[in-house]
């Protein structure tokens, strides 16, 4: 059986599994799916939350970004896990006690203002659409490889599949489907990593393999990696990064995690306040299984790629284009891997041609520039091919990548559509809308969001994980501060919260649009996206905490100048701070 058929078979089987479980779970319970969540064991619920949370960015993109930079991109690892500590300590139990279903609903009630709720809806939509762009980018890469088409074609196929998938609707809400998706995702991620870790270090546990000895050379793996990358003019893998940017970027991802509407919603629906605390912990355990493996995948893949290109070691000539390995041929089809024979010697020179100290050495070896460009987003998917693992492992990783992208995209699209149809249309613009029309509005807004995300995904503002990171920055600047102030301060009032959200959102958006183009449309940026242009050297991806700070400052300042919230709101805040008296969550 050839690889193409095998891919179709395994990806098809995984889809059949999800649909099967969805049908089975529906038949098993007639209650609405939120109620089903309450009967689910907190451990399984944590697994489902992990599947919901880990997107194309975590699965497809992150290890590639770590591989490309090394230590400097540890920010993704810390940022996307550390946010759960904030969620568990600062938000989840109190929002569960409050007992409503959407984030704008909480903001509208706590700040006793329809205006605040409207602003929250706008924040939610901007954050979620940006996030979906990242998912589409990742899903497009996965589809382009396993269907062997150009990446833009892959993207359109992805958007059609996401549309069908999200419109099936309830699928996302059914915890058991997500449990299955988690299992597919983690198995697909771990199996190739175990193989590769065994090949390189003899240790079957990748997170331990990362810090073990490289079997072939007898030196520690990371030391070996540092050596080969610096020999090619790249920065040392474990070398220092910019402390200010790493700190701000990590903070942005952490605060953003705690401000993402589709993640917060998970904690509204657990049975009890105590469970909200536990389930954040269990979710992080399951997320950590992937996140502890990712840095090993990154480092080992980087080493494997360099080994393939320089089979005799980096001092020896590179492999010739004619004899390039199959994985390069396969990925050339997608357009995500490119070779250009700059010095016409037919060999593939891969090195850092921007390194000033390396030019002399390159000239001496007759190199006329780097000849191979590898898109970071292909690394995890290409990893089993690079390590020459069996065909079914290659197919499995495609299934895993798609599970990650689709589950998260569907979750975000549901958050967008329910916000538009419920918070915006039903509770505000057209109160008397029929259920049927409401559903129609929900579907149209979903289709609209997919279309926008696909069009922008054709020329994404960055790799999947970087685009997603922008969504986190926006969530950090707009939603997290207002939720936290709503719980921890009795003094912040409706005017303060509204102004705070607007300031955080607008300033952050302006900063992003300045470098990445208005509404991320390529070519409309006012300044080139290079470090020399950044305000205090802060890249757009790391701006979130600054936006959050401005949000807090504006909210406190405006609140101090205006009247305190009414008595009953202060009592509401008192009551959400203690678990006692939490009823079941109130439905829509």
């Amino acid at each position, binding site marked *: 059986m050839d690889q193409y058929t095998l891919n179709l078979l395994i990806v098809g089987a995984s889809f059949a599994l999800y649909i099967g479980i969805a049908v089975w779970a529906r038949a098993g319970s007639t209650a609405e799916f939120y109620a089903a969540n309450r009967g689910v064991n907190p451990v399984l619920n944590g697994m489902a939350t992990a599947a919901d949370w880990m997107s194309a960015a975590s699965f497809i993109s992150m290890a590639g970004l770590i591989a490309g930079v090394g230590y400097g991109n540890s920010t993704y690892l810390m940022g996307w896990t550390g946010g759960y500590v904030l969620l568990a300590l600062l938000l989840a139990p109190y929002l569960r006690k409050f007992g409503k279903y959407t984030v704008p609903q909480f903001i509208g009630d706590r700040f006793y203002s329809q205006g605040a709720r409207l602003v929250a809806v706008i924040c939610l939509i901007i954050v979620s659409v940006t996030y979906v762009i990242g998912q589409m980018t990742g899903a497009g890469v996965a589809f382009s490889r396993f269907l062997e088409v150009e990446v833009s074609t892959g993207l359109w196929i992805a958007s059609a599949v996401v549309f069908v998938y999200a419109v099936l609707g309830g699928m996302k809400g059914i915890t058991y489907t997500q449990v299955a998706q988690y299992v597919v995702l983690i198995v697909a991620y771990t199996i190739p990593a175990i193989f590769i870790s065994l090949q390189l270090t003899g240790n079957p546990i990748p997170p331990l393999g990362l810090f073990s000895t490289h079997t072939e050379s007898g030196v*520690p793996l990371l030391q070996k990696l540092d050596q080969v990358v610096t020999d090619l003019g790249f920065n040392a893998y474990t070398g220092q990064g910019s402390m200010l940017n790493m700190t701000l970027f990590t903070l942005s991802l952490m605060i953003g995690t705690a401000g993402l509407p589709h993640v917060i919603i998970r904690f509204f629906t657990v049975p009890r306040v105590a469970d909200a605390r536990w389930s954040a912990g269990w979710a992080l355990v399951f997320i950590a299984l992937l996140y502890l493996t990712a840095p090993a995948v990154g480092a080992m893949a980087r080493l494997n790629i360099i080994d393939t290109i320089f089979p005799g070691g980096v001092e020896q000539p590179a492999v010739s284009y004619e004899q390039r390995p199959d994985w390069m041929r396969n990925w050339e089809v997608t357009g995500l891997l490119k070779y250009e024979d700059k010095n016409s010697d037919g060999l593939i020179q891969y090195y850092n041609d921007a390194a000033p100290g390396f030019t002399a050495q390159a000239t001496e070896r007759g190199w006329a520039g780097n000849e191979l460009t590898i898109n970071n987003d292909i690394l995890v998917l290409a990893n089993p091919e690079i390590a020459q693992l069996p065909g079914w492992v290659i197919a499995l990783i495609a299934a895993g990548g798609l599970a990650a992208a689709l589950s998260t995209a569907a979750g975000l699209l549901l958050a967008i559509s329910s916000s538009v149809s419920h918070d915006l249309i039903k509770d505000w613009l057209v109160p008397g809308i029929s259920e049927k029309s409401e559903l129609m509005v929900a579907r149209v807004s979903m289709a609209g969001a997919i279309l926008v995300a696909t069009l922008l995904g054709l020329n994404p503002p960055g790799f999947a994980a970087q685009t997603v990171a922008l969504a986190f920055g926006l969530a950090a600047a707009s939603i997290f501060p207002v939720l936290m102030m709503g719980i921890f301060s009795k003094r912040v009032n409706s005017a303060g919260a509204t102004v705070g959200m607007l300031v955080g959102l607008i300033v952050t958006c302006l900063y992003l649009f300045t470098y990445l183009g208005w509404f991320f449309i390529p070519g409309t940026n006012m300044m080139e996206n290079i470090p020399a242009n950044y305000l205090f050297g802060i890249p757009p991806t790391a701006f979130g905490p600054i936006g959050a700070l401005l949000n807090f400052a504006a909210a406190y300042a405006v609140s101090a100048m205006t009247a305190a919230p009414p008595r009953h709101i202060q009592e509401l805040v008192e009551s959400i701070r203690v678990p*006692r008296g939490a009823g079941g969550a109130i439905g829509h």
Partner: protein
Amino acid sequence: MADNTSSNAYWAANIRIITICLAIWAIVSYGFGILLRPLLSGIRFGGTDLGFWFAQQGSILVFIALIFYYATYMNKLDRKFGVEEQ
């Protein structure tokens, strides 16, 4: 709130434990993983230094421990102040 003093004491105790946990959260990630890494560079670990390990693995393990510790602590605190769910 019927019993304001008790609920204030409960909240104060909660804020205290949150502050302690977040201090540890910050020290392992922003501290050991980023800002204090040069200070830890003398401690070698698996072909690199301890700061690299904290940035790529250690901090994640500490995060998990922190959440479970907080959940256990708060469940006890809820009972002590009689504000647990019935």
